[in-house]
C-alpha cells in the first residue's frame, strides 16, 4: 500500500534538512510546531546538537497550542520572538521553519518574516517546510532563503575560491565529512568553504565570489545551480566521500547502491570495474543528468522491496535499517549508513569507518 511502512520507519523530513543548514550560522531558529518537531530535529536528526558548538544557532519550538493554530496568532509568534531575542540579542538572523501545523492553517511565512524584520531590524528567513517532504527538500529551501537574503559578490573567474554545498550531517559519511570535502577541493586547487558545516553567514555573503560551486548531494547541486543562475559560477559534483576499492579481488554480477544519489554514485565509481552492473537507487532527489540507465528514485518501502527484494542483485549496499524490509534477499549486504535514514544508530565516527565495509566486501 502506498504510504504504508511495515518494515521501515520515517526518514528525516524537510524541516530537519532546513534546520541542518541553519544550525551553525548563529541564528534564532524557530520551529513553528507544538513541541515534537523541534524535538525530532534536535534529538534525532542533528548530531551537532549535543556538541555545544560555540556560535551555533539556538533552536526553539514555537510551542503552538490548539488555539494559536486555529486563530493563526502570528502576533503572538512575534511577541515570543521578542522574548527570545532578549536572551539572544546577538542572533544573526531569525528563521521561521514550517511544520505540519502551519501548513494546515496556512501560515503566511513570508509575512511573518517581514513582520520580524520590521520589528527587530534583523534579517528574517521564511522556510516553508511541512514535515511531509524529505529532508533534501528542506535543505534546498533553506539554501534558497539564505542565498536570497545574504549572498552577494561578483564572480572572479580567475579566483580559486569555491563553495561546497550540501555539507550537512544528514548527507555526509561522518562528522569529518566537511573537512575531508574541503581537502579534496584543495587537492584540485581550490580554497573552499563548506556551506552548512564550519561556515558562517559571512561566508554566504561572500559566496558570490566563488568561481565554482561544488555539490555533495542533489540538494547541494540545487544550491549550486541557484548560484550559477545568480552569479554565473559553474556548478559541479564533488564526491562526498573517497572510496578506495583498488585492491579488490571479488567480483559481483549486479549491485544496487542505496543512499543519497551523489554518495551512491561515489560508490558506483569505486566498484564499477568489479561488478557487471551497478544501479543507484534513492528515496530522495534524483538528478537526471547524473543518473545512469537502471537508476531509480523510490517513493517508499514498497518500491524498495520491489527493486531489491527480487534477487536480481547479488550485492546490496545500503543503510542497515533497510535490511529489515528484504529478509529473504540472498544478496550480500554491505552496510552503507545514511544519517537521514538511521540517524545515530549506525553513524560512523570517521569517513574511514564509513567506507571500510564496502572496501572489505571486495577484498
Amino acid at each position, binding site marked *: 500500500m502506498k504510504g504504508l*511502512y511495515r518494515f521501515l*520507519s520515517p526518514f528525516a523530513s524537510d524541516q530537519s534538512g532546513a534546520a541542518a543548514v541553519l544550525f551553525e550560522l548563529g541564528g534564532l531558529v524557530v520551529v513553528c510546531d507544538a513541541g515534537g518537531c523541534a*524535538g525530532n530535529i534536535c534529538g534525532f536528526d542533528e548530531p551537532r546538537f549535543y556538541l555545544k558548538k560555540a556560535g551555533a544557532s539556538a533552536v526553539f519550538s514555537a510551542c503552538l497550542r490548539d488555539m494559536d493554530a486555529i486563530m493563526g496568532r502570528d502576533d503572538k509568534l512575534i511577541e515570543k520572538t521578542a522574548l527570545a531575542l532578549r536572551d539572544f540579542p546577538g542572533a544573526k538572523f531569525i528563521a521561521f521553519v514550517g511544520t505540519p501545523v502551519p501548513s494546515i492553517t496556512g501560515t503566511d511565512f513570508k509575512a511573518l518574516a517581514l513582520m520580524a524584520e520590521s520589528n527587530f531590524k534583523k534579517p528574517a528567513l521564511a522556510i516553508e517546510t511541512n514535515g511531509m*517532504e524529505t529532508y533534501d527538500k528542506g535543505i534546498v529551501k533553506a539554501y534558497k532563503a539564505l542565498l536570497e537574503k545574504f549572498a552577494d559578490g561578483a564572480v572572479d573567474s580567475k579566483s580559486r575560491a569555491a563553495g561546497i554545498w550540501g555539507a550537512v550531517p544528514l548527507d555526509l559519511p561522518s562528522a569529518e565529512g566537511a573537512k575531508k570535502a574541503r581537502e579534496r577541493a584543495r587537492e584540485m586547487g581550490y580554497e573552499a568553504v563548506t556551506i552548512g558545516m564550519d561556515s558562517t553567514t559571512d561566508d554566504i555573503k561572500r559566496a558570490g565570489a566563488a568561481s565554482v560551486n561544488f555539490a555533495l548531494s542533489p540538494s547541494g547541486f540545487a544550491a549550486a545551480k541557484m548560484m550559477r543562475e545568480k552569479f554565473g559560477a559553474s556548478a559541479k559534483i564533488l564526491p562526498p566521500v573517497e572510496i578506495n576499492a583498488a585492491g579488490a579481488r571479488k567480483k559481483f554480477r549486479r549491485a544496487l547502491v542505496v543512499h543519497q544519489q551523489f554518495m551512491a554514485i561515489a560508490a558506483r565509481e569505486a566498484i564499477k570495474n568489479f561488478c557487471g552492473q551497478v544501479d543507484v537507487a534513492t528515496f530522495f532527489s534524483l538528478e537526471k543528468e547524473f543518473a545512469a540507465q537502471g537508476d531509480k528514485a523510490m517513493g517508499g518501502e514498497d518500491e524498495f522491496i520491489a527493486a531489491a527484494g527480487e534477487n536480481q542483485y547479488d550485492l546490496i549496499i545500503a543503510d542497515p535499517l533497510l535490511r529489515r524490509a528484504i529478509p529473504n534477499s540472498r544478496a550480500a549486504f554491505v552496510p552503507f549508513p545514511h544519517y537521514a535514514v538511521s540517524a545515530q544508530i549506525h553513524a560512523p565516527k570517521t569517513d574511514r569507518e564509513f567506507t571500510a565495509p564496502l572496501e572489505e566486501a571486495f577484498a
Partner: protein
Amino acid sequence: MNEKIFSITADALARKGWKGLPKEFVPSCAFVYSSPATLSYNSPGALGFGVKRAALAVPESVMLLVGPDCCGRNSTVLASEEGYSARMFYLRMSQSDLVTGAHIKKIPDAVEAALETAKPRPKVALVCFTCVDALLGSDAESACKKAAEKTGAFVVPCYMYALTREGSKPPMTAIRASIYSLLQRREKNPRMVNLIGFFSSLSKKSELFPLLKSMGIETAAQISECATLDEYMEMGRANFNLILDGESRFAAEELLRRTGTPYIELARLYDIDKIEKQYTLFASALGAKIETRSWKENARRAVDDFRKKFDGARFAVGQMVNASPYELSLSLCAYGFHVPFIIASPTEDDFKYLGRLARISPATKIFSPTTPSMALFKETRGEVDFAVGKDIADYFPDAARVSWNGEEQPFGFEAVEDFFAECSRAARGGGEAGA
C-alpha cells in the same frame, strides 16, 4: 549565575501559588528552548515512555502511526534502541491527504497489513493520530471502528496531540486512558487491585506488595506484567484501581464510568512520616490495619547512614525523576540536606509541597527548564554535590549524577532506601547511577 536567567525562590513561588504561576513555567507563553534537558521530556514522543511506547504497554498489540514523517521520525531511533521496532507501523501522510483526507480511508487496510505482517498476529492495533488530524477534525473513532470490523482485532485510537499539552487531557493523560480502554466490566474479584499510573513495573522490592497482601489483596495487577491480552482483560475484575501517578486520574475516572471500578490514589513520596501516614489512611479506608514499622525503620536507617557520610549534602533536582521534584526536594530539606536548585516546572499538585519547602528552604532557586533564558545557564561547578534527574547532569558536571529515572518504578519506603543507596553509589563512583 547569569542574572538574565529566569529563576524564582521557593518562598516567592509559594506565595504566588498555582494561580499566580509565573508565565516562564508555562511553555506556551514563550518559545521552548531546545536544550538536551528540555528534549528529554518536552516532546510528547520524547525519551522514555512517550505516547507511542506507552501505548504499546497493551500486550499483543502493534501501533499504526498515522501522520507526517516528522511525527514518526524519533521512533526510528527510539524503537530500535528500546526494542519495539517490529511493533511499529507507519501510514505516512502526504500533502494531498491534508486536502482529501484520503489517509483516513486507508486506515482499515493499513491495520490489516500491519496485523498480517507482525508474527504472531497481534490481537490489538493501536492507531496513533497526531496534531494534523486534530486540526483536520478527522473522525478517528470511526476509522478505528471500520478497521476493527475489517480485521476482527481490537482497534484503539490514541492521540499524540502536542497542541493540547496544556489542555485538560494532555497527551500523556490521554494515553493512560487509551491503554485501559479495552477493559470491560467483569465479575469482581474482591481480592484483586490494579496498580495504574506507570507503563513499566513497580519495583518488586516495594513494601506495597506485602502490605496489600496483609490487607487481604492477593493480586496486584499491572499492565506491564500482562504477557497476553487475556491477562490484561483480567484486570477488568479488579475490586478497585490504585492510582500511583496523578496523570492516571482521568483514566481511573473513565474506568469508574465504564466498568464501575472505584479508585484510590497513593502518591509517590520520599518523606518517611508522610509515607507511613498515607499507608495508614489507605488501610483504614479499606477497613484494615497494617504494620509498617520494619520498613519505616529501614528507610530511616538509610537516611541516617547517608547523613553520616554526607552531612549537609547539596542537591540539585531536575524534572525527569521518579518522584515529584518538589516533594523529593522538600523531603531532602526536611532530612537536613540542602537543595539550592530545582530545575523543574511545578504542577498544580506540586504546590501541596511548595508551602512547606518555602518554610524550610525559602532560598531554593527554582528554574523553568523550557524558558529561553535557560540557554544562558552555563555549567555550574562547586555548588551542588548531587545532580538528581536524567535531564540535569550536564548543568552540574562535577556533581555525582543520580538519574533516578529507571524504568523499574520505586515506591514507598523502599524508594527512600534505594534513592539514598543510589546517591551513595554515585558519590563513590563519581559517575552516573540511576534506578
